[in-house]
């Protein structure tokens, strides 16, 4: 079927992004909004907007039945879930399709399978994709975890099978640690995901976080190369770029080919991302998990490939085959994205909701801003702190970093504290410029940098 009217079941910058992609395809849009989001940019841009409930997300953006009812009432034939909220919720996908609407994403069974991290590992092994040495599926109890850890070798990471966002993760250096920490991880997983299932993986020290962007149409799949997302704070990405400077061409080809093999083996439909750890000294890469949705950092891939990933996922959901073949996917230059959050990096990243007084974004074909803000807009305190993403493109990585530094100088936002000062400091940092950042780099860097590590009393 061809999609005519798309329901946007999300908010913020990704809702704006989806509306723009839909418009480019001639599709009408209906924007869902909570009562706290009546003034958001996506409501202004959509053809129609509909209230879906109270500010707390569980009464609006997480209310699957309410969203589906609103989509039906407004005559939509498809639902885009964005990222976060219900984007990887198989029951929501099932509910959307049970009413004859298209879910813009993979089939519910695929979400279910890849959303269970232990099952996703098994799928990867079956497709011949290397995984971090770890337990065979879930571990039944602490004794089984101890036995598995003996084979894997310490330190081990205890992870929630249903996990995400860094929750339910513990690192055990010894069997005693494991005995003590496994029950904690289990309680946290149970509370966060209503599933206390755990599995174990060996800790890869100082790994890089590399991920491959894929598109599938249910039978065939292609990759759109990789991104590097090693600069993270509390397992949340801060700065993302493409391509990954640490990879040689042969490794890149093997990495991306492995992602395509796994994607095709699960009959994946839509845009998705396979996350890997890359051990630079040995040149080995290991699959860790798949995200069955569009990701925050998709624009860096769009900047180097010229492919509109959000439009592609909507077209695929509408029944079209993949818009391009693998040999038509080429990359040019280097792109970097930074997340501009309403947080004060000089005060322990304290969230800072408030009103945007003045906003000026540099305009240049090599600079893109995917945002949700405008002058006079009051950022509500109920959702995450992402205000927008600044993305730049350059011929080389060095040129892209210079352009990012200049773009940040030209970016002015008053009324709120933002993470712009952090990004300016990162763009000027010799280690970042040399491409030396691994996944534990940023927290150590912040701890040693007085500008971002004030005395406790000042926080």
């Amino acid at each position, binding site marked *: 079927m061809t999609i005519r009217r798309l329901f946007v079941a999300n908010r913020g910058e990704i809702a704006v992004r989806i509306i723009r992609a839909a418009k480019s395809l001639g599709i009408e849009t209906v924007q869902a909004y909570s009562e706290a989001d009546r003034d958001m940019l996506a409501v202004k841009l959509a053809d129609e907007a509909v209230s879906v409930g109270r*500010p*707390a997300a569980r009464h609006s953006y997480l209310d699957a039945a309410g969203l589906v009812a609103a989509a039906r009432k407004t005559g939509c034939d498809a639902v885009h879930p964005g990222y976060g909220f219900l984007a990887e919720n198989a029951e929501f996908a099932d509910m959307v399709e049970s009413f004859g609407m298209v879910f813009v994403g993979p089939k519910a069974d695929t979400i279910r399978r890849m959303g269970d991290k232990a099952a996703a590992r098994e799928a990867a092994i079956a497709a011949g994709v290397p995984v971090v040495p770890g337990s065979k599926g879930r571990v039944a109890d602490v004794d089984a975890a101890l036995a598995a850890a003996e084979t894997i070798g310490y330190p081990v990471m205890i992870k929630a099978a249903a996990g995400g966002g860094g929750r339910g993760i513990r690192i055990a250096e010894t069997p005693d640690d494991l005995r003590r920490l496994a029950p904690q991880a289990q309680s946290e997983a149970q509370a966060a995901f209503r599933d206390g299932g755990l599995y174990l993986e060996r800790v890869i020290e100082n790994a890089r976080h590399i991920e491959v962007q894929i598109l599938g149409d249910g039978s065939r799949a292609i990759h759109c190369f990789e991104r590097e997302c090693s600069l993270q704070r509390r397992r949340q990405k801060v700065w993302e770029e493409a391509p990954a400077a640490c990879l040689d061409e042969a490794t890149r080809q093997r990495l991306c080919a492995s992602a395509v093999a796994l994607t095709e083996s699960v009959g994946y439909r839509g845009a998705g991302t396979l996350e890997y750890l890359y051990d630079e000294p040995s040149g080995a890469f290991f699959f860790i998990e798949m995200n069955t949705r569009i990701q925050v950092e998709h624009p860096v891939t769009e900047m180097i490939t010229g492919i509109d990933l959000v439009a592609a996922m909507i077209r695929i959901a509408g029944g079209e085959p993949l818009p391009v073949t693998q040999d038509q996917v080429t990359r040019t230059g280097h792109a970097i994205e930074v997340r501009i959050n309403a*947080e004060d990096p000089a005060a322990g990243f304290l*969230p800072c*909701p408030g009103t945007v007084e003045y906003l000026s974004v540099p305009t240049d074909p090599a600079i893109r801003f995917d945002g949700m803000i405008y002058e006079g807009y009051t950022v509500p305190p*109920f959702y995450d702190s992402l205000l927008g993403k600044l993305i730049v493109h350059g011929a080389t990585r060095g040129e892209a970093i210079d352009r990012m530094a200049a773009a940040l100088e030209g970016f002015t936002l008053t009324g709120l504290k933002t993470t712009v000062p952090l990004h300016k400091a990162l763009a000027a940092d010799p280690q970042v410029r040399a491409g030396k950042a691994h996944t534990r780099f940023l927290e150590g860097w912040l701890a040693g940098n007085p500008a971002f590590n004030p005395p406790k009393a000042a926080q």
Partner: protein
Amino acid sequence: MPEIRSPLPGSFYRRPAPGQPPFKEVGDKVEPGDVIGLVEVMKSFNEIRADVAGTILSFAVEDEEPVMAGAVLVELEG
């Protein structure tokens, strides 16, 4: 009347987690430093502590309801 105010805008929670008992009930005595609730702002949870002693007369904000920075959360009897 002594009061406890929210230093932050967000959502006020009277319980440490869903399904758990509230931190404090009406009629409970509080001492400075006691946690009386949480305010969630942009997915970060902040403990709200009493800065004065007293007995809780009433909660000015319902559990899970939005609050503005500076809003009264609890009224006390000194």
